[in-house]
């Protein structure tokens, strides 16, 4: 596969390491009363869609950026790639 790195352009996916669903960015609040349940669901439950999927890839043999890749799990087509750090900020992980 080819991952179109937002900074570096097209790169062979062999340069990357896969983690999983980009929802892993949304780490729960450790002080919430429901923390135990929240963390269980965060760590263990997955949508696992047959279709479009936001997922985390690490550019191990590259610039060491974590990327959020929007990829279709039925066709492997990739529609969007973003720096995970930017996505994390958009999802309100800035302090």
């Amino acid at each position, binding site marked *: 596969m080819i991952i179109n790195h937002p900074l570096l352009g097209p790169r*062979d996916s062999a340069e990357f390491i896969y983690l999983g669903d980009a929802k892993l960015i949304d780490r729960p609040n450790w002080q919430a009363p429901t923390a135990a349940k929240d963390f269980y669901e965060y760590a263990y439950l997955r949508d696992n869609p047959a279709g479009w999927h936001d997922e985390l890839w690490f550019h191990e043999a590259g610039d060491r950026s974590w990327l959020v890749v929007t990829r279709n799990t039925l066709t492997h087509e990739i529609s969007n790639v973003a720096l995970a*750090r930017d996505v994390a900020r958009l999802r309100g992980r800035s302090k």
Partner: protein
Amino acid sequence: MHSLKPVTALGGIEPRTDVFHHLSIIENDGLALASFAARRGFELECQTVLKGLLGVVPSVGKAIFNDPISGFWLGPDQWMLTAPRDSHELLADIVKNECGAAASMSEQTGAWVCFDVIGDALLAFCERICSAPIRQMQGGDTRRTSIHHLNCILIKQSAGDQIRIFGPRASADSLHHALFTTATALA
């Protein structure tokens, strides 16, 4: 002056050179390296420091060849600086004095082995070692990629027939072996 004698990445006193009639692989032991990472909120200061050192700030995927200090882009807000080791063995400290708390400096000299590969078979050579689109790359283009399972950095020098390869120093022998056998296969 201390009493310890350095060895090259390949373990020699002198760096190694392998000459094929169309290609030469030269171990370059003369470089000091330091990584330079901008601290949060000091990105602009760091640009200024880099401009001062290199003349131009290396943009994404680019290298700037300058004297005495050259540099290339490593990642977001992160660069690698190189300079002659004889004059700049303490490169990290030297730059740290200039940027202070604006940047995180880390000595990287020992982390890398450097090979300069020169010759007219260069393009065919590169096609056999890694997935860098070497024919499309311009002088000054850098590419971190993997060569025979080793995480390396490729820099196309301004002269089209020369590349510089940085690889993990502990695997200098394995990397050299890979380059050497490829050159042999092309001979």
